């Protein structure tokens, strides 16, 4: 199979419900890969298996040659995989800056004793984290909200903060779960530009689950369409859109 990221013969079932059936796909480095499909097709479940929220019933997930099907849930990010969530999962009681700094959690910040005494190595680590976070803030235009509490922010900004937090982990692979849902057209257009920047300037590979076909057509290099837990078509956005099975899945013929 290919080198960068691959899902091989993935199965996921809860009791008798098959959320994912024999799903295989691979993503090349530097690609923007979109997963589309009707509601309940199992798109988010794929992300949840990759980030170890669920244990797959069969199959494996390979990232850069490592089998990550069984790593601990909090270790996934250390392999360079970050994600956002369909229903925003931010730290509501913290500021935007703290949220983004939490994205840097996987980098060493000194052990607990050093932190209790705020030793020089902790200071340097905090400075470094702050600098990297400021880069992300600049990229995504979050400066006006830096010290605002997340709980008071409008929906569109929260979406961006979540994207920023995922970027702060300095991932190689970014999983975006419906990044454009709930955004107004202007925000969605910004998002398309940002995805482009993430791909070209930061060199991060992106897999996104998305319903907004205009965003998918604009941003994605390849598209996978799922239905009832199965892959039914792969190809460019135009190819997938014209595929008879995809039309059948959406229109229900």
């Amino acid at each position, binding site marked *: 199979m290919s080198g960068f990221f691959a899902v091989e013969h993935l199965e996921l079932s809860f009791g008798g419900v098959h959320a994912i059936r024999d799903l295989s796909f691979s993503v090349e480095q530097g690609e923007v890969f979109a997963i589309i499909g009707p509601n309940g097709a199992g798109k*988010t479940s794929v992300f*949840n298996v990759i980030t170890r*929220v669920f244990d797959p019933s069969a199959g494996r997930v390979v990232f850069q040659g490592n089998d990550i099907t069984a790593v601990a849930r909090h270790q996934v990010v250390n392999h360079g995989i970050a994600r956002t*969530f*369909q*229903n925003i*999962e931010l730290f509501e009681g913290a500021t935007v800056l703290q949220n983004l700094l939490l994205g840097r959690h996987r980098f060493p910040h000194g052990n607990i004793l050093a932190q209790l005494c705020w030793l020089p190595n902790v200071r340097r680590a905090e400075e470094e984290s702050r600098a990297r976070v400021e880069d992300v803030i600049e990229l995504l235009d979050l400066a006006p909200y830096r010290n605002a509490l997340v709980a008071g922010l409008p929906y569109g900004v929260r979406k961006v903060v979540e994207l920023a937090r995922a970027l702060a982990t300095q991932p190689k692979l970014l999983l975006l779960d419906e990044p454009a849902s709930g955004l107004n057209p202007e925000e969605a257009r910004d998002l398309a530009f940002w995805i482009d920047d993430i791909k070209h300037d930061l060199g991060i590979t992106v897999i996104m689950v998305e319903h907004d076909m205009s965003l998918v057509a604009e941003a994605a290099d390849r598209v996978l369409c799922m239905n009832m837990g199965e892959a039914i078509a792969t190809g460019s956005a135009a190819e997938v859109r014209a595929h008879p099975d995809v039309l059948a899945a959406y229109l229900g013929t």
Partner: protein
Amino acid sequence: MNPQTLQILQLTLNGIAIGSIYALVALGLVMIYKATEVINFAHGDILMGSAFVAWGLITIAGLPFWLAVIITMLIAAGISWLLEARVMRVIVGQPHFAGAMLTLAIAFMLRGAVSMAFGPSSRTFQTPWSGQSTHVGGLVIADLNLVIIAAALIITALLFAFLRFSSLGISIQAASQNQLAAYLCGIPVKRLNSFVWAMAGAMAAVGGVLLAPIALVDIGLWFVVLKALAALVLGGFGSIPGAIVGGLLIGVVEQLAGVYLPDGFKDVMAYLVLIAVLILYPRGLLGEAHGRRV
């Protein structure tokens, strides 16, 4: 029957009687929780206050027992209704912890008020069954225990029928599943919530009147809420059968531990069982398993 089995049976029966009261209190707590998602720490103090009110009505005012019980239930229901409608509703939408702390504050105030009104000494009152007992085989059963078990059974059955068959009960169930949806369907959610609190308050009053003859009318009666909470967590929070099972289990285990285990175990047995069960079954014995959607 040999004396050994007889003693165990005797203790189990006593345990079931005490456990019925725990279950009754736990039922009230679980109803309040299901309706308003508040853990009502003041429930034990409503029970304690009811015992004092019943004592006052019977001993000082000289009312007949049954009339006193009914008046006590009405008073407890009224206070609970007011608590929900006037106090708890102010903080709707805040985290659970705030609600729990507010009921704790109310509990302190009730405890202080009862203590200021009646003084610290404990007292007793007569029930129609005081001092009587029934002999079954070799067993000697205090009539009071039988009455407690019967009362708990009747209340549980009535509650079940009410929630299952009456339209009001079904509305309550609907509101407890999704308040907003119920509200949009025209169910008067606010009034129902107050009603549920009032019902729970009346049940606590029954618990208080039944517990007082066993344990004296005393400020310390509020402690029963901790046992009931232990019962709830044991049975699985939010589950009505769980509340009953948990209550009975704790009642029986306590009685048996009082006799068969060294001194001191009786008081802590409920909590030992609680910790053991939670380590083995983190959701309690009959708890519902909820996943969280990501």
